[in-house]
């Protein structure tokens, strides 16, 4: 996921301008010349200067004939990309479904899918998914009293 300096600099520059604009709307502390806007404004100015320097650096490197950083090999393999994307997908999945589906079904599904994507055999994946889900549930819910959602398994709750 390497991007070249110019691209990073441009993205950072645009971002810093947005931050600057939002920061200007913050009010002043009564009785003082500055307020909640001071630090974000300073930071966004600093980021903007850095982004300009990054663009200059990247432009110099390109002029000196530096090779463009190639896209890493894993991006060309669909399985690797899927594996990479599954991490954020499973986290968002948990965030959205844990409450109504319940912790145990959610974690079982997640562990199973992730392990299968990482080439674990079916047998081992299923056993690990069941055992680990139960162990973590008992450890956090029964021992530490963390309110893990029961969801669909509510009738079986202990």
């Amino acid at each position, binding site marked *: 996921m390497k991007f070249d300096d110019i691209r990073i600099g441009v993205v950072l520059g645009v971002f810093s301008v947005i931050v600057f604009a939002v920061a200007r709307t913050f009010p002043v502390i009564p009785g003082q010349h500055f307020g909640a806007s001071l630090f974000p404004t300073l930071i966004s100015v600093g980021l903007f200067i850095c982004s300009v320097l990054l663009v200059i650096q990247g432009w110099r490197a390109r002029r000196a004939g530096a090779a463009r950083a190639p896209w890493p090999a894993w991006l060309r393999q669909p399985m690797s990309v899927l594996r990479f994307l599954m991490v954020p997908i499973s986290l968002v999945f948990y965030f959205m479904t844990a409450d109504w589906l319940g912790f145990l079904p959610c974690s079982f599904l997640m562990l199973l899918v992730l392990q299968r994507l990482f080439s674990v055999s079916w047998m081992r994946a299923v056993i690990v998914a069941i055992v680990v889900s139960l162990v973590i549930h008992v450890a956090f819910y029964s021992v530490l009293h963390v*309110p893990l959602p029961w969801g669909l398994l509510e009738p079986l709750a202990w």
Partner: protein
Amino acid sequence: MQVADPFVLGVILVSAIFGLFVGAVPGLSATMAVALLVPITFFMDPVPAIAMMVTATAMAITSGDIPGCLLRIPGTPSSAAYTDEAFSMTRRGLADQALGASIVFSCIGGLFGTLVLITCAPVLADFALNFTSYEFFWLVVLGLSCAIFISPSSTLRGFVSLLIGLLLACVGMNNPAAYPRFTFGNDDLLNGVTLLPMMVGMFAVSEVLRYATDASQRRVEIQGKIGNIFTGMGGLMRKYPASVARGSVLGTVVGVLPGAGADIAAWMSYGVSKRFSREPEKFGTGHVEGIVEAGAANNSALAGAWIPALVFGIPGDSITAIVVGVLYMKNMTPGPMIFTNSPVEMYAVFTVFVLANIIMLPLGYLAVKTARQVLNVPRNVLMPVILLFCIVGTFAINNSAFDVLVMLAMGLLAYVMEENDFPIAPAVLGVVLGGMLEEHFVFSMIKADGNFWAFFSRPIAFGLGVLAILVWLVPLGKGLYRLSTEKRRLAA
């Protein structure tokens, strides 16, 4: 003696084994070990919680040497400095000496760092009782500057990383004006980006992401038999006393510097060892001197990092950044008063450090003997389990599912940053210290009625302020000088 409590001793033993395991498996680092322990420390009393974190990290830093030596793959980033050297020793059949040296001298370095922690921290805290917001402001500025200039990547990238961290710290209502910044109407963000989920995301989730891009696992076979690792260690101590001393001192000093931790200590120490060695040509062929010095350095850095963390709340490295978060959670506010307000917990820190470094010897021996099983643990099963544990752990901290999203966002950010050579340490420091920086600045300005010169009015503040300005002017000056000589050369 709270540490002598059987529960605490049991916790120490269990977290030592956990630390040894995490350190030895490549792809899991000491910082990740602490990040994973955070949800568990949440439910414990302060003393066992601290004991867990101290022991796990001490063990992890040491056991990271084992796969480095046997397989040329460092278990933790701090072992990378001498992995090649240790592996060359293994190839020459000297694996037991390499492993023995790294374990024994880690123990010695760690004990030295602990000694410095025990003697200096309370003295420094006493001195710091005189500090006001002016002094603290300059101290935080110095700490942040340190992180930028010591980081291995370019200063520009370090600065960008720091600014990102500072910006993240601006989110929420926790600012002197009590105005909700960058919350975009989201109630969950009113308290800011929650620190601990952010750490877990940056150090644990980013590793899982990295693993996902290359999930190949090769079965590793360890060549040759490993004999008694402790033979000949006395001889090494007599042969290289200067190395041991130098490594321990340098490691402690680097640990004290904010943002620089065990890995930088090890690299610097290895370089210093080569430079001052009487046999520099032997370095790289399988020579134990570098391992003696760097092995001591990375463990002493761990103890050194606690000094600024305890006395000022300024973390000495990423591990203590997480520890500072946990201390706040336990209502033990780091600062000069911590030795008066929580003396029992502080003595517990000291005692556990000593204990952890001593049990490193038998447990290290055990780790070497079980190396083959540990190193062949299937990471394709381990990583999903770690991810699940991160989710539940993060949820457990605030019972907030939103924190899971924060963790994800930070994990992705950390992954993209590291892939593009932006160091993470300045960002972590920026997040932890951003609030402090702003608070001390605003309070000082209000006290001084808008007069910036008041920042130099007190002697200590003046000294620190001048130091901070010099720290910035010198590299800037050098950079400008280089630019101008380059221009002159191009013009010629």
